[in-house]
């Protein structure tokens, strides 16, 4: 069977800057995906290329086996049957909710159009707001109108350009889940662009991590967290540090916190330097443990404390401890390592300690 969405070796550029470099990606069947990355990684550009707003420098885009864009040619966006939800929503201020939703139904017969609009109003639960204008609605309601409008002409694929980023964190995840349900019900594919991993986790089955115009990994959320393909993914998804270690003769990696079982990176032999990804939940606070580390910082998180600990060598690890274990900075506390999924990288000169950026900004 032909893949649903196929991006082949894409290059997109705003001269002189290359925004997307040699990116390939396949969504095998109608599903829900997400492009995740820091701002400026090219994710919005990629979305606009799929929608037909940006020309390609190289490569091709196919949807259901039909070519949409190639070098020097692109199908106009109005013919693609790809819906898009914009970051600023782009609701037409001069049209009512009903007329906004009906905007894309121009060729439809009046009764069908009316039926479709009503169906969508019901779907997004805005029936009593049908005659309002966008500025008379709350932020969340506007999001729903934008969603209904994009879905009205039954697009094959819906592109979402950070449409929830203006909402606060909790509402954002709720809405992402809600949109996911609606998309599944409509049988449309979805592709979200986001810089917020929790939004991505709530929304998508599969997530692609983008960095500087390159796709680092395309996988489900669990694997991105527990089996990151490279350092960038490891640092971008979740929190953690890379703890230095050395491959022993037995193939285990010896570290300051003890020996760790795991598959060494390809091409690593005994005696090679490696780094092991240690997540905060891999470090267990245990007063009985002979291993001690000094509290450098502590951050109260409600149910737990996030401790930043200094090991005797000067290396740092993060540790999540239940919040009744309250230790001031400077105190030495016992810890032990309990890693379920060992992720090892060959030691790199430049980076020895990484931490993810703040979880999310409102």
């Amino acid at each position, binding site marked *: 069977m032909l893949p649903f969405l196929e991006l082949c070796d894409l290059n997109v550029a705003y001269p002189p800057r290359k925004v997307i470099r040699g990116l390939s990606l396949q969504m095998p069947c109608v599903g829900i995906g997400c492009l995740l990355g820091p701002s400026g990684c090219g994710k919005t550009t990629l979305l606009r290329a799929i929608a037909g707003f940006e020309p390609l420098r190289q490569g091709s885009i196919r949807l259901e086996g039909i070519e949409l864009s190639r070098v020097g040619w692109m199908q106009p966006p109005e013919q693609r049957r790809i819906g*898009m939800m914009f970051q600023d929503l782009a609701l037409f201020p001069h049209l009512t909710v009903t007329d906004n939703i009906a*905007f894309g139904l121009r060729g439809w017969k009046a009764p069908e159009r009316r039926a479709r609009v009503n169906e969508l109003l019901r779907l997004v639960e805005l029936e009593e707001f049908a005659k309002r204008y966008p500025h008379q609605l709350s932020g969340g309601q506007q999001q729903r109108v934008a969603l209904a409008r994009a879905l009205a002409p039954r697009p094959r694929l819906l592109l979402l350009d950070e449409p929830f980023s203006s909402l606060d964190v909790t509402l954002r995840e709720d809405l992402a889940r809600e949109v996911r349900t609606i998309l599944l019900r409509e049988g449309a594919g979805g592709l979200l662009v986001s810089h917020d991993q929790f939004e991505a986790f709530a929304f998508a089955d599969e997530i692609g991590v983008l960095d500087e115009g390159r796709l680092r990994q395309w996988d489900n959320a669990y694997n991105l967290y527990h089996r990151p393909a490279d350092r960038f993914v490891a640092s971008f998804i979740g929190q953690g540090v890379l703890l230095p270690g050395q491959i022993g003769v037995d193939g285990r990696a010896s570290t300051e916190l003890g020996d760790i079982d795991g598959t060494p990176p390809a091409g690593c032999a005994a005696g090679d330097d490696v780094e092991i990804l240690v997540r905060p939940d891999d470090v267990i606070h245990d007063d009985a443990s002979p291993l001690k580390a000094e509290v450098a910082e502590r951050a109260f998180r409600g149910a737990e404390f996030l401790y930043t600990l200094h090991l005797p060598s000067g290396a740092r690890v993060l540790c999540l401890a239940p919040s009744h274990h309250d230790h001031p900075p400077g105190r030495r506390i016992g810890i032990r390592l309990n890693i379920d999924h060992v992720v090892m990288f060959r030691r790199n000169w430049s980076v020895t300690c990484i931490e993810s950026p703040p979880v999310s900004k409102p």
Partner: protein
Amino acid sequence: MGIERWTLLVTGVALLLALPVFTVFFTALQPASDVWRHLVDTVLADYVLNSVTLMLGVGVGTLLIGVPTAWLTGVCEFPGRRWFEWALLLPMAIPAYIMAYTYTGLLDFAGPVQTLLRETFDWSRQDYRFPAIRSLPGATLMLALVLYPYVYLLARAAFLEQSAAVLEVSRSLGVGPWRRFLTITLPLARPALIAGMSLVQMEALADYGTVQYFGVSTFTTGIFRVWFGMNDATAAMQLAALLLLFVFTLLVCERLSRRQTRFHHTDQRTQRPPRLRLSGRWSWLATATCLIPLLCGFVIPAGQLLVWAWRTAPQMIDHRFLELAGHSLWLASGSALLILSLALLLGYGQRLRPRPLVRLAVRSAGLGYAVPGTVLAIGVMLPFAAIDRSVDSWTREWFGLSTGLLLSGTLFALLFAYSARFLPVALHSVEAGLTRIRPSMDDAARSLGSRPRAVLWRVHIPMLRSSLLTALLLVFVDVLKELPATLILRPFNFNTLAVRTYELASDERLADSASFALAIVLAGIGPVILLSRAISRVRPDHAPLS
């Protein structure tokens, strides 16, 4: 392919509209004729001197009127302040040539002022000297009175933009109000003042009606004389090109200073300083400062027109008046619609294809507003006449028919000239409106299945409704007032209100011309009210309407 169609269409239309300006420059490059040499030997120095004096005088005059009134109404509080805010714009409604007619009627020997003086003091002609209004200083005064609102508008906006923080800092550093005005307020507003003054000076250079009536020899009257009196198109063009050099210098000044105004743009959210409350003597002085330009620039001339019209209207308002009013009305509304459509086409095309070529073409079509009507008319006339001649000779050669004049001397030529001259007015509104529509609107409409043309109809035009109406009204009044290009290009026996006013005034039938003039002034009040509404919306002591 659709892509190239838009590029071609927009570039083509834009370049066509820039044709008159290009014509002037290319014709001016031709070798100098005897007439030109004669001009250089005799009157050219006068033209340059008078034009430059006029330009500088009007510039200084508008600054002297516009800046104090803008500062008083923008920053201070005094009796009548709110009312002056918009009333100070009223002189814009009166074309400079009509101002010149009314003041001539008031101030010349037989006018009420001199008559009153003679009767009161029992003087006769030799006993006193009264400054002649029909002179270069007179023309300067007339132009300054109608043009100061440009400076007023820009200066006021600049004063209002200045944040409270800057003024508070200076206060905390112990600077008094007078020094604050000189060392902070004025320098910060300088780019806006220069921009306003350049605009005004361009208008002053472009004026034909006033200087012609006052008998002051400037570039514009010179061009007229060389073209129609000496019948030398090339020399007229060379004069025109020289004038355009002055104009473009001003244009560059204006553009450069506008660019600087952006650096001074402060955060909208910063608090506006409280108004400076004037009291006692100072408040009366402020009221007087604002009242004088209003009286001289609007109340007195409009009153004079009313008095005249009261006397002469019964004879003047007949079927011919109605016919002329009809001509003016449909010419103005027709060209306003045409120009608005062109502006939409160019504005939207530029948004659709933001390529350097398209942008350059649209910019060059926008040059027309800097080009005096006289020059522009000639720039239209020459290529049209050339086309007429070649078509005529071609059909005569092949079919033995003479086609005569196809383009020149037709309404088409007039509409074309108006389009080239006033397109920028409409384009400015359209572009300003379009930039307020986020690009994601276009993308959203496209992704919902609308083609670019449908996007324009279904999204942009409805969203731009109010800017389009403003543009329509502004162009309508500009066309209604326009004098020199209409004089040159109108079809034989085709008359408008403006032309008739000019003809009657030239025949020294000032009182008879009043009805026609008054009709123009009344029409001109419309856009002034629109403008005043727009400025009252940025009034600092009211929350902005959102």
